[in-house]
């Protein structure tokens, strides 16, 4: 059966890999991202790969006021959504954030508030339709604040907590709320990082997302071993943790 799938932040590496897999399963896609030219390219690529119908809309998601009309456009195309994947975000420079309140708030806005704004609107729609999947990419960084990137971590942690509540609220509505927590992923965003054994490819992450959606999971650590790593990180007592150089 063809599903209507909304992908927000479609040009991000993980979203791109995920939407390609859905395209090859011949579903209908609606793609949203900031960069119109790249969106167009990705939409054409999805069509060749077999997507039944592909629509897209360029939008600066940092502008929260644009969200209601964006969702109106989307529902005008697909009145019912089966899956939503929210994948947009930025990787802030922690140093720059520390030096500027404005930068910190901007990063919180794009990585947390914009997602929460969209989720607030989407949750009501999904609650009404009484089924479907809301999937959001957060990060293992949200599990515990660390000096190296706590602005990012705090934003992602906020979304994760929000999702917990939403999951609880939408449980009776038969709506899956999936929190996706990737570890290190090899994407243009992390291009110049030194890549060790813990790094994963976007395609690997995408595959696990599709599976977690199929299996109605609540939380996905991906690749799976991050579940263990984060379990350890979370259980280190704060009096020790605060002394670590993480």
């Amino acid at each position, binding site marked *: 059966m063809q599903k209507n799938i909304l992908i927000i932040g479609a*040009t991000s*590496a993980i979203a791109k890999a995920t939407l390609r897999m859905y395209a*090859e399963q011949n579903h209908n896609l609606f793609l949203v991202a900031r*960069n119109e*030219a*790249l969106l167009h*390219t*990705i939409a*054409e*690529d999805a069509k*060749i*790969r077999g997507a039944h119908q592909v629509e897209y809309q360029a939008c600066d998601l940092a502008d929260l006021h644009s969200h209601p009309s964006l969702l109106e456009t989307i529902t005008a195309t697909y009145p019912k959504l089966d899956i939503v994947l929210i994948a947009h975000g930025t990787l802030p420079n922690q140093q720059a954030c520390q030096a500027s309140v404005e930068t910190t708030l901007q990063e919180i806005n794009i990585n947390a508030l914009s997602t929460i704004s969209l989720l607030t609107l989407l949750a009501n729609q999904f609650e009404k339709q009484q089924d479907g999947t809301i999937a959001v990419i957060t990060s293992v960084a949200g599990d515990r604040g660390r000096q190296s990137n706590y602005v990012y971590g705090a934003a992602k942690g906020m979304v994760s907590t929000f999702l917990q509540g939403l999951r609880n609220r939408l449980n009776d509505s038969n709506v899956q709320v999936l929190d996706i927590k990737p570890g290190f992923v090899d*994407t*243009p965003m992390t*291009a*110049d990082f*030194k890549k060790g054994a813990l790094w994963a490819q976007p395609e690997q992450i995408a595959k696990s997302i599709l599976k977690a959606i199929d299996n109605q999971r609540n939380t996905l650590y991906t690749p799976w071993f991050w579940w263990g790593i984060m379990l350890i990180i979370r259980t280190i007592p704060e009096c020790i943790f605060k002394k670590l150089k993480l």
Partner: protein
Amino acid sequence: MKLSGWGRYPIIQTENAYPNQPGLVSSLVSVATDQPKTTTQIARGLGRSYGDSSLAEKSINLSKLDHFIEFDEQSGQLTCSAGVSFAEILRFFVPKGWFLPVTPGTQFVTVGGAIASDVHGKNHHIDGAFCEHVNALELCLASGEVVECSKIHHPHLFRATCGGMGLTGIILQATFTLKRIETAFIQETTYKTANLAETLAKFEEHDAATYSVAWIDCLATGANLGRSLLMLGEHASEEEVKSHPSATETLQAGKTSKLNMPFDLPAFTLNSFSVKAFNALYYGKARQAQSQRLVHYAPFFYPLDSIQNWNRMYGKNGFAQYQFVIPKSAGLVGLTEILTEIANSKRGSFLAVLKVFGQGNDNYLSFPEEGYTLALDFKMDSTLFEFLNKLDAIVLHYGGKLYLTKDARMSEQMFKQSYPQWQEFQKIRHQYGAHQAFNSLQSTRLGL
């Protein structure tokens, strides 16, 4: 970040950019030309060239620019971004009944890398090199401007870019034609030959076969010198595959392997004894003088892809691949001389692959031309280059040349003598300002 080619020699410190859209490539490139040249920069795909052709202080990695742009289901004409890999094309298009017109011995190359090296396959004698199937490409010039080139538009730039090792600009996308297949299988025939003369004669006898390649036991000497397994292949028809018990799905793409070489092998595991044993075993694998089997295209074309990171087998110092071509006229004599030199040196190569090339094309720096090409891997050590210089002299003597995408060490003189069109090539680079914007360790070494 530390970066190297597939041979893991040399290794250099680089700054990397991963543009995922054409506009970013333009801005990366044009920024660099604004200023007087201080850093060198070059395009990179999946880093499957062995030597230093994709190495520079700044590496512009195209592997994230990986979109299908247009596909014509009637003609098989595909337009895609330069960073799309051959593996991805096969994964997607084989089940639809299409195959690459030409493929090298690994599928982990990008379309851009394949064009920049004008790669050849086992069907060169019939279908030529990859660029002969390229109808058009988009190139980002030193100025950041994007031009379309083909045999008609900017034909000289096209000829310079095909096989031009990234030295004319950055290929953004290409249009080429896939070929129809009925099944994902290959009808393979293997001949076991006793020596070089017989190997060459068998090639000659089977010059109508679509795919052909010989694996040479490069440590065999005397009367056995040049003994080989010659493998021929034809795309299998539906009829042939249906009657075969192990072939369930006729158009299934290959699966990527999970086998991995997780660390460098210690140096002592690779010595003349182990290589000799391997070579003898491999040769002995084929029991009969002639055998036949139906195989999936993946093991037929990409036997090495089944072990990821197999290049670590040669230890942490890396290795060099040495691939040359010599004209047909030099054939038996020239190959005998070189194989004798190698056997005497006791420097075994796990792989010694011999192919017959058909006619070459007129791309300025394209490697293939009518003759015999032999590719060998040698473990890096302090005396290797001296030995390879000796081989260079023989290759040059017989009017041959080395393959740039495998090279990490040839001299400027060797290059300029064996690539007679290098000056025309350089002229075009100057015309488009590319000599200031695009340079690799290799191009600097070769005096381009």
